[in-house]
């Protein structure tokens, strides 16, 4: 699902950025290019970042072997 039409960024890229270590919306925006031009997608970026961080945390709780910070 593409929601940043200026840099053509979707949920996949945002999740990849979180998996690569980004922890805030601004870090995700910087690394993906989303939200840098018109800014209208920032809330969509935030929603995906929050949902994915939650998912990562749940997976980490279920499997303590997984190091969240390193994932």
């Amino acid at each position, binding site marked *: *699902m593409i*929601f940043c*039409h200026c840099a053509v960024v979707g949920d*996949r890229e945002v999740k990849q950025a979180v998996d690569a270590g980004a922890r805030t919306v601004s870090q995700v925006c910087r690394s993906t290019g989303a939200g840098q031009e018109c800014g*209208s997608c920032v809330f969509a970026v935030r929603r995906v970042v929050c949902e994915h961080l939650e998912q990562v945390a749940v997976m980490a709780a279920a499997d303590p072997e997984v190091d969240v910070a390193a994932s």
Partner: protein
Amino acid sequence: MQPVSPRVVELLNEALTFELTVTNTYFLHARMLDNWGLPKLGKVFYALSIDEMKDADAIINRILMFEGHPNLQRLGNITVGETPEEMLALAYESEKAAVKQFNGAAQECHDLGDHGTAAVFEEYVRDEEQHAEWFEAQLEAIQRVGVQGYLAQQIDASTPPGS
């Protein structure tokens, strides 16, 4: 003519934002599907886009009737599916959200005593319910016949290009 409350114009503008957002989203989906060689599904998105544009037109006229200012600047998030299934799923979610929004707006208009605008919202609820039902049926068909089987039905190689 003045509305019973300024809130009525706000509700109409919120509905206008929804209609404009889906008009654009469906239009892009239609053209992407055509470009992917799936013109049958593309035609449906195209027709729905035009329907939503006509709804937007009617809402603009109603806001102007109430001496309000139609806000055509504001758009919701345009979420673009990267596959036909994702397009159908996104459209299904947005139609369900519209049904909820318009039901709430109709109720608020009834409470304010504006039964005319409430009736307009009720008509849109029925339209969006039908759209939601259609998208739900497509997702169910995909479950039954598989995505490949479903997409094979959306090809139309019989029309020459440019006609």
